[in-house]
């Protein structure tokens, strides 16, 4: 029974899950949830995902949601030998991994997502940009990426010496802000640029970057 992703191909979080499937060579079936038509708020979908967002997954009857936990589950179940999540017996490597995952979620995800909304989604829908908000978001994201620049000057990846999910989780927003919004947040910082170049050129990301 193939791994089922209930999602929307261009959605950030759907692509995040598809990326990890590709990294682990897990074949998946994408069952479309039509966001523009509001299918994600329909009662049948809310039974799968009570917050009414995509994606949700069904792995031979085991159901769950939230893209980052799904990614962790994929590595745990299908990633034998994968180093995308450190061995839990290595408490220190795991702690540093969790620190990096927390940084992505607490410092990066919200301003990056809102900036993408302001600069790419709103124009696509013919809505006016909020210049004040864009300025504030750029200031926040720039200050966070200054820290990333410092951290990545001392180590190759956010969790330490090995590429992990903590790095890959950044891809959907970074790709959008760099390639679609054409910002220089990444390109203006040599260590961030090196790191982004490496993670974004992985075949798994290339396969899903424009649609899961």
């Amino acid at each position, binding site marked *: 029974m193939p791994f089922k992703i209930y999602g929307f191909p261009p959605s950030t979080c759907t692509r995040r899950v598809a990326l990890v499937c590709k990294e682990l060579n897990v074949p998946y079936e994408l069952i479309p949830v039509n966001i523009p038509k509001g299918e994600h708020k329909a009662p049948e979908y*809310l039974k799968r995902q*009570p*917050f*009414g967002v995509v994606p949700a997954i069904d792995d031979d009857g*085991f159901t*769950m*949601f*939230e893209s*980052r*936990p799904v990614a*962790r*589950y994929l590595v*745990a*179940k299908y990633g034998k030998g994968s180093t995308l999540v450190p061995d*839990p017996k290595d*408490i*220190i490597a*795991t*702690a*540093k991994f*969790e*620190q990096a*995952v*927390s*940084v992505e*979620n*607490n*410092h990066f995800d*919200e301003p990056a997502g809102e900036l993408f909304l302001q600069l790419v989604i709103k124009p696509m829908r013919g809505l006016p940009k909020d210049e004040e908000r864009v300025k504030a978001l750029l200031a926040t994201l720039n200050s*966070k990426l200054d*820290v990333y620049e*410092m*951290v990545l000057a001392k180590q190759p990846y956010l969790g330490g010496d090995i590429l992990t999910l903590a790095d890959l989780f950044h891809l959907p927003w970074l790709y959008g802000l760099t390639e679609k919004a054409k910002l220089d947040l990444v390109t203006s910082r040599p260590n961030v640029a090196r790191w982004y170049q490496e993670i974004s050129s992985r075949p798994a990301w290339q396969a899903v970057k424009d649609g899961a």
Partner: protein
Amino acid sequence: MAILKLHGGKQATCTRRVATVLHELQVPFELIEVDVANGAHKSPEYLKIQPFGQIPYIDDDGFLLYETRAICRYIAAKYPEYGLIPTEPKANALFEQAASVELTNFDPSASKAGLQLWIRKMGYPFPTDDKIIADNLETLEKKLDAYEAILSKQRYLAGETITLADIFHLPYGVFVTYAGSESDSVMNRASRPNVARWYKQLISRPSWLAYLDGVTTTTAY
């Protein structure tokens, strides 16, 4: 083995989250107060340890770690017998789902409204904004409707037993109630009896009650 050092603030929101989990796991710790009022958390020496200039961080016999949920996970991993992070694969996946729900569906609005409500309650001289509080509480109400659906089928967010995912809702889960009363607040509404039940269970835990007046060095349990 040196005692674990928690560098933070006695009343600080995220310091309290870590202290709650340390207490849950009966881990002795020393609170070392960071002089935030005088900008100590932005000094070059501090930024070498916590580059985002925030509190808290821990020093566990020389191992330095920041981000409260990472700290809590690290401590819980050291004491797996408490079961705050399930290890069986499906239970672990459902734990991660619940922890992510807290992070993406609760924390953004609860921390924004909660921080401001906490500032007002403590009488700190920082500006607060009625609209930020109101807008975020409104978002939170909708999110908690989904929580009601989840908690109507199981006792806690990851299943039948408490995990870190539930405990992570402290302290902001308490601070957002400052906008209401003991009998009617966003976490305790008649219209969401299961959320109310779960919330009351959280705030009656000894680990929460231990630091109601602020975090203190705890060497014995």
